[in-house]
């Protein structure tokens, strides 16, 4: 009776997760969807606590510590730090699954060595294999996420780190991991050190996966690690033969895969290229030397152009996040609207350091949801736009991606700001973007450079409007 009730609760929880994710596909229902999903989680937890013969001491201790840390972190993290926050949390999911696998092994290693099987257990080889897979995925997720977190938070250099023979080392580690796996599954109770070695290898692999990835490629690795954290949970579901873990783990795994695919497509690169390519280390090549003179503009002159504009599109990039300029950008947007202009925010899928990064920042600054438009919606009408204002974006508006077949980012879809009647680029200098590719946009006839810190520049424009 109790068993069936618990199983039914798990089914209910799975359904709520699915509904919650479904509701996330529309802005109107998204927030409720998150609550629905949280209710599902609560049901799963309560059902588990109702199992027979449970002791709550250790559970309460663990949950209290975790709840406190998680709660405080979630309420205090600034929106600009969202990418590193998500990266870190992926890692926690990974290590939790790893520990679940380890605990399951620890509990069985004694009986297995004595040749006994725990009643109700699936075959030993199967359990051992499931534990091993959980361990590998969980370990890779954990250490990979910590590296991604450190990169995004600026604790270590965000540049790709490549060394000679990296692929060989990776390949060798994978082979060793597989070898250990086979030995482990054949004789799971035999060598405990083998198990520990596997944990270390998994952690090493995670680090090696994440270090060659830098800067603008970070969205891909975050999505990938997101997927891994789900797959780790899924694998631990196989260990404890529990469907709710398998269902929700695969939902998350699938979600990460879809996002990874979208990110790769938005950069016109394959996943292999992102993972092993190390874009930006070679210095970036352009086949055509970019020539011409950039035309700087003062805030005052920019104001006159904007004052007369009837449609304005902001194109934000990672630089806007760095300069924390989202609030003053929204202020300028509102002023322009009052002035009679149609204002939109065009967001490239890979702008920023994680999928949807710019949307979150602009939403935080109270930019209405309808004004946020996707690349594919703005490009067909971009030539009717009077002024496109590029704030801290570079590679995602680089016309070389469209025109220069020899350049590193050729073929990547971009927001065609150079087709707008006028284009303002807010930038500190003429330096190239993350990909290291020169940007001919800066030298176009209709481009004006507004040099300086993005926040200060936008603030200056706002002041101009207010004073007149």
């Amino acid at each position, binding site marked *: 009776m109790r068993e069936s009730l618990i199983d039914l609760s798990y089914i209910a929880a799975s359904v709520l997760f699915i509904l919650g994710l479904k509701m996330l596909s529309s802005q109107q229902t998204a927030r409720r969807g998150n609550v629905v999903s949280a209710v599902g989680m609560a049901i799963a937890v309560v059902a588990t606590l109702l199992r027979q013969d449970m*002791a709550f001491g250790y559970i309460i201790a663990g949950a209290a*510590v975790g709840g406190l840390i998680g709660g405080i972190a979630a309420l205090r993290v600034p929106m600009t730090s969202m990418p590193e926050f998500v990266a870190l949390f992926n890692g926690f999911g990974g290590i939790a699954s790893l520990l679940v696998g380890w605990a399951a092994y620890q509990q069985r290693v004694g009986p297995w060595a004595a040749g006994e099987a725990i009643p109700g257990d699936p075959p030993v080889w199967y359990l051992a294999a499931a534990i091993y897979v959980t361990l590998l995925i969980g370990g890779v997720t954990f250490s990979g996420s910590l590296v991604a977190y450190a990169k995004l938070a600026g604790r270590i250099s965000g540049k790709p780190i490549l060394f000679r023979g990296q692929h060989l080392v990776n390949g060798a580690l994978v082979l060793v991991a597989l070898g250990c796996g086979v030995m482990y599954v054949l004789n799971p109770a035999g060598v405990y050190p083998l198990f520990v070695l596997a944990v270390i290898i998994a952690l090493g692999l995670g680090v090696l996966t994440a270090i060659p990835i830098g800067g603008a490629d970070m969205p891909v690795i975050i999505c990938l690690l997101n997927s891994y954290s789900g797959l780790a949970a899924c694998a631990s579901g196989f260990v404890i033969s529990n469907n709710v873990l398998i269902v929700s783990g695969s939902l998350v795994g699938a979600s990460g895969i879809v996002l990874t695919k979208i990110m790769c497509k938005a950069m016109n690169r394959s996943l292999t290229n992102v993972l092993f390519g190390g874009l930006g280390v070679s210095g970036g090549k352009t086949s055509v030397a970019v020539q011409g003179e950039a035309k700087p503009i003062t805030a005052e002159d920019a104001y006159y152009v904007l004052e007369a504009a009837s449609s304005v599109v902001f194109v934000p990039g990672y630089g806007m996040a760095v300069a924390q300029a989202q609030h003053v950008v929204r202020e300028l947007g509102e002023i322009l609207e009052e002035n009679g202009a149609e204002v939109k925010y065009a967001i490239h899928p890979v702008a920023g350091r994680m999928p949807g990064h710019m949307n979150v920042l602009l939403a935080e600054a109270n930019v209405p949801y309808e004004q946020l438009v996707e690349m594919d919606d703005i490009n067909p009408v971009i030539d009717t736009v009077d002024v496109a204002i590029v704030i801290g974006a570079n590679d995602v508006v680089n016309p070389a991606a469209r025109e220069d077949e020899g350049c590193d980012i050729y073929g990547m879809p971009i927001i065609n700001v150079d087709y707008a009647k006028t284009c303002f680029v807010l930038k500190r200098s003429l330096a190239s973007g993350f990909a290291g590719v020169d940007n001919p946009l800066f030298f176009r006839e209709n481009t004006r450079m507004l040099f300086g810190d993005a926040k200060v520049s936008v603030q200056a424009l706002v002041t101009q409007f207010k004073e007149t």
Partner: protein
Amino acid sequence: MLVMLVFVFILAMFLGLELISKVPSQLHTPLMSGSNAISGITIVGALIAAGTVENETVSTILGMCAVAFATINVVGGYLVTDRMLAMFKQKDKGSQS
């Protein structure tokens, strides 16, 4: 039993691919943090490891650590997603919602 688990796994994967493809890019960050919270479902395994009475001490302690990490994931993930989604507003509904 094993076949059933694999069966569920494959169906859920396909369902996930279908569901997520429909999420607009504006909502990708909340999607990630929300799905992150869901991946905290491993807390079920952690609770079993930390709470089952007949388990030996080491595995209980491993379970307890797993509970802590999974709880961070669940609590933090849902809270931060809610915080984020609260900011995605439409213009007409005003700023207080």
